[in-house]
């Protein structure tokens, strides 16, 4: 906190624009951001863009290798699987399942987690201590294990997986919001507005939230990469999306039996997951870097 600059601050762009200006400086981060946007567009418009239906079988072209292979066919750019379904269409549809759903999951758990976290930051004493310990317990159970247990309660299926992952992600958001709000509450500007007579809720929404929103968003990118991996892992274990759905993890486990004769049915979904997670992580990394830089300047 450089206090002597306080009168020059009018010349600076708003905090959010500052963040963006630092964020866009790194080309690698911008590539990641571009890929992230690309995936988002694909997730929304995949039904319009795909050449074939993801469940349509082309029985005279089973297990075609990708088009760059000698035996490949250009009308099936990334080949077909054991039932003659077009890999490209399935991967594109899978974007809206694996990537798109992870986005929704993160937003739901973000909202719930931030509400619980900020309320808990306002409590003190035994209630707060109990919550702290409870969070410690939940956070130290492996997230996938917890998700598996919740799936075992609710029964397998894509919807239940999503709820399970929402519940697993909530404690992380509670934790980070709680710490961030507590940190802000000790600062002078909060005291100033408290002296002005603002109530706790008003302080939260007008003073604290604008200052911690970036921290929460950067946690959200971390949570999203974890959510993509968890959805795919549960799909892979056969606990998530049912087999005909083109979810990337389920596609991967579907290809295992044919791994040796048709390796593309396994490595393409894997690469898709890797691509989505790398893009998400790059955006998050760029954001954290930008927040740090802005703090230093």
């Amino acid at each position, binding site marked *: 906190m450089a206090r002597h600059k306080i009168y020059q601050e009018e010349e600076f762009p708003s905090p959010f624009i500052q963040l963006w200006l630092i964020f866009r400086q790194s080309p690698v981060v911008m590539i990641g951001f571009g890929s992230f946007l690309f995936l988002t567009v694909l997730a929304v418009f995949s039904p319009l863009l795909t050449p074939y239906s993801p469940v349509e079988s082309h029985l005279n072209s089973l297990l075609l290798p990708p088009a760059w292979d000698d035996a490949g066919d250009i009308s099936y750019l990334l080949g077909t699987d054991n039932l003659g379904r077009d890999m490209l269409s399935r991967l594109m549809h899978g974007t809206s399942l694996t990537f798109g759903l992870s986005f929704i999951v993160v937003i739901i758990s973000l909202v719930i987690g931030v509400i619980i976290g900020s309320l808990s930051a306002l409590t003190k004493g035994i209630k707060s*201590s109990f919550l702290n*310990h*409870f969070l*410690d*317990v939940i*956070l*130290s*159970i*492996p*997230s*996938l*294990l917890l998700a*598996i*247990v919740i*799936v*075992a*309660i609710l*029964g397998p299926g894509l919807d239940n997986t999503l709820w399970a992952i929402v519940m697993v992600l909530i404690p992380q958001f509670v934790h980070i919001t709680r710490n961030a709000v507590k940190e802000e509450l000790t600062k002078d500007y909060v005291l100033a507005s408290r002296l002005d007579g603002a109530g706790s809720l008003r302080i939260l929404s007008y003073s604290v939230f604008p200052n911690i929103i970036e921290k929460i968003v950067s946690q959200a990118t971390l949570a999203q*990469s974890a959510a993509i*991996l968890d959805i*795919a*892992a549960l799909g*892979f*274990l*056969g*606990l998530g999306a049912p087999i005909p759905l083109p979810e990337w*993890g389920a596609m*991967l*486990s579907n290809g*295992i039996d044919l*791994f*040796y004769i048709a*390796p593309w049915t*396994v*490595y393409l*979904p*894997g690469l898709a*997951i*890797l691509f989505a*997670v*790398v893009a998400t*992580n*790059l955006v998050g*990394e760029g954001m954290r870097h930008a927040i740090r830089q802005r703090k230093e300047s």
Partner: protein
Amino acid sequence: MLVFIIRRLNLFFFTMLLLTLLTFSLSFLFPGDPLVNLSGQINATPQQLEQLKLAYKSDQGIMQQYFAYLSHLAEGDLGLSMASQTQITSEIINLLPATIELSLIALMLAMFVGIPLGFIAAVNHRKTADNIILSVAMLGYSVPVFWLGLVAILVFSIQLGWFPSAGQLSLVYEIEHVTGIQFIDILLSDSVYKWQAFRDASAHIVLPACVVATAPATIFIRLARSSMLAVLETHYIKAARAKGLTFRQIIFRHAVRNSLLQIIRHIGLQFANLVTIAMITEVIFSWPGIGRWLIESIYQRDYTGIQSGLLVLSTFIFIVHIVTDFIYAALNPLAREHNHGTS
């Protein structure tokens, strides 16, 4: 130090209480009769059910039921597995050592690879080496573990044929089950083929351990890098530099030790992550550990199994957590003193 120990034990007690509450409430949340879920006896006769009711006090209040459950746990009775109708405790005692072996070896591997790489990256801050190490770390952090395991099997077991693709030890070797940790058992056994068996066991563990270690190693790279960078900024490093120590002396004598401290603190936190990865890896490599058993018990709707597996795995993670806390406090006097107020 005494206050520190009491605080930690208190925390451990409290977390175990919450954890057992969680597993106890699972028996009500799972479909089916809570009593059957707790005991795992699906084919019990009416007389046996009466006995179970007495043992688990299920006709009394919920607190009595919980304490009955706790006393069963204290006696080491986790109930019967619904799928195989054998004692879960004995199954877990058979399986847990394999998981401990795999996860500890992977943790070692991750630390020995990740931490030096992180230090190298920090010393070459914002140079080519740093950038390369960071990009590799980003890739390794993002790769889905089940895919990595499959690709590793395809490349190293099927195409190159260097390592076996499944299991813990070739069936040719007959090793007596003493501790359950394969390497110790082999060394204890008096077989003529001891060293061949040892080599075979090592070949079996290479691929799964590497796959499990990948993601934690990248986290260690980042932790080591940031803690080394923080240490290099401090005044005592400046003082050491002003004293005229060479770069090598500064790094090895002062910087490495102090930054290792910060990393040790995070090992416990990373361990939960590592165990998750180990569970999936066990499925892929058919490793006879508790993770694979747990996932199979989900397929078989073995609720007693799921409940006890969760309890045992989480307890294992807590114990590692607490042990690293103690190691950290033993190495760093500062950590012992700051524990009085609420943290």
